[in-house]
C-alpha cells in the first residue's frame, strides 16, 4: 500500500478546492470519493420527462434517491431533512449555485450581538480566498452591492432577471428595500473553457453543459492536471491512528466492496456537515473511545441548517419563470443585521428564485399547496402556472448543542457502516425570524403586484446546508478544530467542510466553505515550507 502526503475524504465543494490547492503546490494528494463521476449524458435534461426525476433518482434527498453510493440518514427527529449528493462534485451537482459570501459581521456574532461565538478567523482573512475561489468557479454578478465590502470584478455579467426578476425588483424598489442581482456560480458567457448557460432551468438536477460550477467541471480537471489522484467509489469506514496518536490514513471499501487501506501523512475531511461527524464518530479507538478528535464532546453537536420559509405570490400576468437558472435571480439583505426591535437576534436574506415548472405548479412546489383536483382544477392551475414568484426566507440558525448528528444504533449503509441520526428542532429565535421574514416577503410580493400570497412556514425538504458539527475555535474545550482547520486532538487531521462553521450567517454557505478550504490548504502549504 502506497502512502501519500495528504489524503482528502470527499470530492465535493471543499474537497475539490483543497485538493487542487495542495496539488498545485507540489503536494502529493489522494482523494477518496464514495460516489462516481456523473456522466454528462446521464442528466435528465436530455429526456422529455426530465421533471419527473426531481422526486426520484435525481432527488436531493438521499433517503428518496437511494442510489448505491448514498447512505441513509435517520431524520425522524428533525424538522428539516438533510439534502446532499454523493459524486465527484458532491452537492455542487445539485445546488442552485446561489453564491453569496458571508459578511464581515457574520464572523463576530458574539462580539456584536452577544450570542453564539466569534470565529477565530475573519472576513479580511478569507477575502483573498473568496476572490481566488470566485475565479476558479466563475461567478456571474455585478459589482457595487452595498450589502458587502467592495468585491473583485465578477467573471461574467449577472444572470438575466427576465420578466420575473424585473417584476419582483419593482416591489423592492417601491418599498425602498435593498435588492441586488444574485452572485451566481453560473456562467453567462463562455469562461475558462466552459460554456455559457442556455437558461434551460433545472440547475437542481445538475448541469449537463458545465455552465454551472459543480466542482467536477471546475476544480477537479485542474487538480488532476496538477497531479492529484482521485479514487471514486471508495467508501471510507474509518480514519486510523498511528502509535504517535496522529492520523495515518483510512480504511475504505472499494467499488467491488473489498476492504482497502490508504496511508497518508495528513488527512483532510471534506465529507459535509453530516458525513464528517459520522466518520469521526465511526473512528473510535482506545485513545478516542467517543470518536476521533472528540475530547470536547462537540463532534456532531451544534448542527445548523438554514431554516427556510417560503412565500409565494400569484400574479395576473405571465412571468416566464421557467426560463433561466432555477435558484438565481435576486437577493435582498434588507433584514440581515440584528435589529432588537424585531424580537430576534441576527437576520435573514431573501432569495428570489425562478417560477414553478409544470409538475411543481400542480403539486405546490416548495409551498406545498397542491392545486385542487376535480372541476376546480383547471381554473386553479391556470391561475398559478407561470404566474408565481417565490421568495425564500433564508434565516441564520444559531448553534445549539442539542441539535446534533449521532450514529444510529440500527441503521447502516450498504457496506454495513453505521449511518447518521439527526436531531434538530427549530429554535424560538429562528421561528420569530422566519415569521418576520414571511410578513416582509408578503409585503414585497404585494408591492410587486401579487394579488394573493401563500406561504410555507418551514420548508422540510430544505436541508441543503449542513454546518457546525465540528466547529472551529481557539479553545479545545469548546471547539473541534483550531483557526487553521486542524483538529485540536489530532493535529495532522484537518476539516474543511461546513462542519467547521461556528455560526452559519443568513446566506448560502458554499462560497465561504470553499474559501475556508483554500485558506486551510494555504496554511498546510505554509507549514510544510
Amino acid at each position: 500500500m502506497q502512502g501519500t502526503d495528504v489524503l482528502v475524504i470527499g470530492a465535493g465543494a471543499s474537497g475539490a478546492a483543497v485538493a487542487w490547492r495542495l496539488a498545485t503546490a507540489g503536494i502529493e494528494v489522494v482523494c477518496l470519493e464514495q460516489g462516481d463521476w456523473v456522466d454528462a449524458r446521464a442528466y435528465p435534461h436530455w429526456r422529455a420527462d426530465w421533471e419527473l426525476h426531481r422526486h426520484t433518482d435525481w432527488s436531493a434527498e438521499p433517503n428518496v434517491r437511494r442510489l448505491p453510493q448514498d447512505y441513509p440518514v435517520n431524520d425522524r427527529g428533525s424538522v428539516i431533512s438533510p439534502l446532499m449528493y454523493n459524486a465527484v462534485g458532491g452537492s455542487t451537482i445539485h445546488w442552485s449555485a446561489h453564491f453569496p459570501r458571508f459578511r464581515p459581521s457574520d464572523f463576530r456574532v458574539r462580539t456584536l450581538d452577544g450570542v453564539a461565538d466569534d470565529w477565530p478567523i475573519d472576513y479580511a482573512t478569507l477575502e483573498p480566498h473568496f476572490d481566488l475561489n470566485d475565479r476558479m468557479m466563475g461567478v456571474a454578478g455585478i459589482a457595487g452591492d452595498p450589502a458587502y465590502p467592495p468585491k473583485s470584478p465578477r467573471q461574467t455579467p449577472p444572470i438575466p432577471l427576465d420578466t420575473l426578476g424585473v417584476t419582483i425588483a419593482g416591489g423592492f424598489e417601491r418599498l425602498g428595500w435593498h435588492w441586488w442581482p444574485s452572485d451566481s456560480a453560473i456562467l453567462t458567457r463562455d469562461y475558462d473553457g466552459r460554456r455559457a448557460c442556455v437558461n434551460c432551468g433545472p440547475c437542481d438536477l445538475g448541469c449537463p453543459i458545465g455552465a454551472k460550477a459543480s466542482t467536477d467541471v471546475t476544480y477537479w480537471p485542474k487538480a488532476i492536471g496538477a497531479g492529484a489522484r482521485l479514487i471514486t467509489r471508495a467508501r471510507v469506514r474509518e480514519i486510523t491512528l498511528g502509535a504517535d496518536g496522529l492520523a495515518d490514513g483510512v480504511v475504505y471499501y472499494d467499488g467491488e466492496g473489498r476492504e482497502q487501506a490508504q496511508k497518508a501523512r495528513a488527512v483532510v475531511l471534506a465529507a459535509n456537515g453530516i458525513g464528517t461527524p459520522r466518520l469521526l464518530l465511526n473512528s473510535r479507538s482506545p485513545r478516542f473511545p467517543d470518536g476521533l478528535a472528540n475530547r470536547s464532546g462537540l463532534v456532531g453537536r451544534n448542527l445548523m441548517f438554514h431554516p427556510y420559509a417560503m412565500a409565494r405570490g400569484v400574479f395576473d400576468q405571465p412571468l416566464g419563470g421557467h426560463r433561466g437558472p432555477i435558484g438565481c435571480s435576486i437577493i435582498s439583505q434588507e433584514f440581515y443585521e440584528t435589529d432588537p426591535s424585531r424580537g430576534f437576534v441576527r437576520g435573514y436574506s431573501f432569495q428570489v428564485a425562478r417560477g414553478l415548472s409544470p409538475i411543481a405548479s400542480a403539486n405546490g412546489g416548495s409551498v406545498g399547496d397542491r392545486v385542487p383536483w376535480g372541476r376546480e382544477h383547471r381554473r386553479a392551475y391556470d391561475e398559478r402556472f407561470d404566474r408565481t414568484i417565490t421568495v425564500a426566507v433564508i434565516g441564520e440558525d444559531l448553534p445549539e448543542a442539542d441539535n446534533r448528528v449521532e450514529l444510529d444504533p440500527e441503521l447502516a449503509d450498504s457496506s454495513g457502516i453505521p449511518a447518521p441520526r439527526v436531531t434538530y428542532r427549530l429554535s424560538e429565535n429562528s421561528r420569530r425570524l422566519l415569521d418576520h421574514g414571511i410578513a416582509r416577503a408578503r409585503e414585497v410580493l404585494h408591492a410587486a403586484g401579487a394579488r394573493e400570497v401563500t406561504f410555507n412556514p418551514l420548508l422540510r425538504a430544505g436541508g441543503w446546508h449542513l454546518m457546525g458539527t465540528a466547529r472551529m475555535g481557539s479553545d479545545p474545550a469548546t471547539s473541534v478544530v483550531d483557526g487553521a482547520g486542524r483538529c485540536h486532538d489530532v493535529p495532522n487531521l484537518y476539516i474543511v467542510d461546513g462542519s467547521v462553521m461556528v455560526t452559519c450567517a443568513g446566506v448560502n454557505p458554499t462560497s465561504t466553505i470553499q474559501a475556508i478550504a483554500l485558506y486551510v490548504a494555504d496554511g498546510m502549504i505554509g507549514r510544510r515550507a
Partner: protein
Amino acid sequence: MTRARLAAKRDLLAAVLDTLVPPSAGFPESGRLALEHVLAVADASVEAGDLLARAIEAIEAAGGRDARRFAELGADQREDLLRRVERSAPGSFDALVRHTYDGFYSHPATITRLGLEPGPVQPRGHRIESDALPDLGRVAASGPIFRRV
C-alpha cells in the same frame, strides 16, 4: 403484482384520473393522459404500487355497485365519491393525486397546451429576450448596509 392489480381495473382508473383532472373548454386533455405513468409507477415501486392499488380498492369499496359504472356517473357524483375516499384513505389517495399530476403535467400534449415546447430542455434551453437590468442606482446610492467590524 401491484401493476396487475391496477391494470385489471384500467377502465376504472382512467375514469378516476379524468375526474381528478377533467377536460375543459380550451384544454381538452384530461387526466387519463397520466394512465401509463401511473401504471409505470406501480410497476417500478412496490411501495408506490401498493398505495395506488389501495386507492383504487378504496374507491371500489366506497362506491359499491357505483364503482363498476363510475364513468357513467355524473361529475357531481364522481367527485362526491372521491371526496369520501380522500377522507377515508388520505395517504393512498394523496399518492394517486400526486402521481396523476406528475404523469399529466409531464405529458407532451399537456406541455404543448401550456404553451411550452415539449421534450428535453437540453440542448435547446430557453431564449431570454433581454438581459438588461433595472436601474440599480437607488440601491447603490444607499451606501453600505453591512456592519463594519
